[in-house]
């Protein structure tokens, strides 16, 4: 069972992702509402996969991605982006994000992406 950390400042999005993951036999080990919390949760929980929102307060998804990759170059991080954030997505891929999900996402898109990374 893959262990996932969900990072999103919107509780709604966290719930939406969690609902999908739980249904498809992923284990959601933690949630974080900003990049800073994500980083500490990552260190604490060592999840297999991280879903990372891009636009967040305190520490953005891109910053958190870099920070997590700095401590664990093997970290598997999937960005959660909105339409129109191509630049950010590219920046994220360049910095080692494994893939990305585009909001509004479909259930099978999330599952497929997380299964593949």
């Amino acid at each position, binding site marked *: 069972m893959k262990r996932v950390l969900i990072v999103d400042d919107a509780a709604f999005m966290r719930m939406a992702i969690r609902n999908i993951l739980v249904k498809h036999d992923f284990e959601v080990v933690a949630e974080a509402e900003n990049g800073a919390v994500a980083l500490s949760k990552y260190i604490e929980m060592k999840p297999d996969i991280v879903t990372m929102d891009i636009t967040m307060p305190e520490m953005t998804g891109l910053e958190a991605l870099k920070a997590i990759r700095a401590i664990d170059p093997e970290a598997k991080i999937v960005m959660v982006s909105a339409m129109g954030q191509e630049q950010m997505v590219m920046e994220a891929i360049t910095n080692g994000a494994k893939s990305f999900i585009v909001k509004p996402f479909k259930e099978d*898109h999330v599952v497929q992406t997380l299964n593949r990374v």
Partner: protein
Amino acid sequence: MSNQFTNEPLLDMFLFETSQLLEQLEQAIISSEKESDFSDEAINLIFRIMHTIKGSASMMLFDNIARLAHSIEDLFFYIRKEKPSNMDCSSLSDLILEGVDFIKVEVDKIKDNLQADGNANSLIQMIIDHLAQLKQNNQPVSLAITMEDELPLQPKKQQYYIRQVVTQEVEHTNVYKAIIHFEEDCEMENMRAYTVIHNLKDISNEVTYIPANIIDSDESVSIIRRDGFQVVVRTELSTEKMYEFFSQTIFLKDLEFFQLESDYEMNESIVESVKPPFIKESNASIILEAIKETTDHIVHKEHTDRTEKEVIPSNVAQSIISVSVPKLDKLMDLVGEMVIAEAMVIENPDLKGIQLVNFKKAARQLNKITTEIQDMVMSIRMVPLSATFVKMHRVLRDMSKKLEREVTLDIIGEETEVDKNIIEHISDPLMHLVRNSIDHGIESPEERVAAGKSRAGTIILEAKNAGSDVVIIVRDDGKGLNKAKILKKASENDLLYKNEEDMTEKEIFNLILLPGFSTKEAVTEFSGRGVGMDVVRKNIEAVGGTLSVDSIEGRGTVITLKIPLTLAIIDGMNIKVGKSRYTIPTIAIKESFRPKNEDIIQDPDGNEMIMVRGKCYLVKRLHELFKVSTEIKKFSEGIMLMIEQDDQTVCVFADALLGQQQVVVKALPQYIQNFKKMLGLAGCTLLGDGSISLIIDVARLVH
């Protein structure tokens, strides 16, 4: 149990979060408007909130909300990026607040199970126009960037080539070509292609692909969708490895894979490799800027937050969960039932007169635990008034803007907590009171200066705990109530119930609470609406609260609301009249005593009074009031309860006291309420022996 609580929790979450974000947004806008400047922090916040709402709304398929949020997000993206110097804060605030209102209305519709069918097109257009206007006003700065933006970088080239510094020995390498077709609705195909290229970097030094300019989203996305993404790669890896690599592409629908001749000419149009190769310069700098900005922000933020955060363990946020209100209501109901059941067991008639030492011990333990559970459930339901109070800023802003008043709002004690259900009932009345204060109370700046006051009026909203009540005070320093005007108006509307001369100041002020009273000649947009103070009073009384008015002409008005902390469970004194049982909230009872016959006096109208320590109190016989037959009619045989509310005191005569008990307030059944106007009864409750007791509405009794 039923699964009514599991239905669409996601929708609940959407509604909850969106409402919260809108509140936050509103506050940010109003405080920015006050300072006539949108700080970087505020702009970031607004941008982020709109971004979140857009995302959630589009997930829930509320298209109109998503589109509107998107347009505001775009607007603030521009503002954040360009920092236009000459923004019109006021009109921008108006526009965004209008957007907030639109989304609020839609959210309310969704809450009421209606279609969120509002049309935001004109509003979106206004926002787009505003953005265009803003761009035009900031021409000199933005022009350069737009031109740069539109300047195509190597426009017609269809291939791209990456060459690392290391030179390759061509003989040992293979060349493969792959055509990748992505799934139809996977979105951002160009970024998916970019991911492939990025991953290829680790295993190959030479890659060409079509379309080359994959970052230029519109064009490249449509090419990839139509023709697939074509990659030619030179690598040392085997065919199997490369095939495996490509087939692991996420959202792969179709893969065409070929091995080409190893001397295949990849460098038909070789370009020096740049890293990362396909960002347009201008875009890159924007990204960097954005990142720098957020980093600055973080550094700043972290610095200020550090001191508090160090004390708190990192998983504090996780220890809080949100629970749906219906669940809490149900829990409260259940606890209520438990309290009744407990009383039924412990005070069971079958146990009367039996020596039960161990039972009593166990019962005491049970009682202790149920009391604790009850307190805990109660405290869970408690919500601070701050959210309700903060809403008043918006009321104030809109009204003072329209009526051209200068008003400041001071909030005191917003951390005071009340039951969730009660908060919902007092929000509207409170809003009405604040409106009234601005509309009827606070004068125009000129009038105020002429009267020797400061230009800006002040409204103070204060909350504090007082025993089992919460007191909310709305105080303004406006022109106060004019007694003569009130009396005139009241007599015109036939509302005077006694001689003008006999009325105390308080009674005159209370006239404005009567239905059909309104001193303002012209009905204004705000205070009018056909809703008067009588409705406010009715709403407050509906939750067992009281309202009192005080005023000094020329100095201002004070309206005091007294609201019970909770509705559900009260400490009650059970009393008996004939065969009926009644409960009086203990808090209202000052004392109980057995009167002597000679203490009773009668006034000329035949009203009975009782003299207690030199003071006279009106006596109300419950058996007469509720028309119950009883044997006990002599004062010396029954019991007298002195009851006080709002500085008014009466003595109530009943047959006997039954004892004190926590009772669970139940509304009277609808058919009884319909059948007869139940004056003086606040509800009913179940007693330990299974009998029903009627809860006396003390406020009605004393008036």
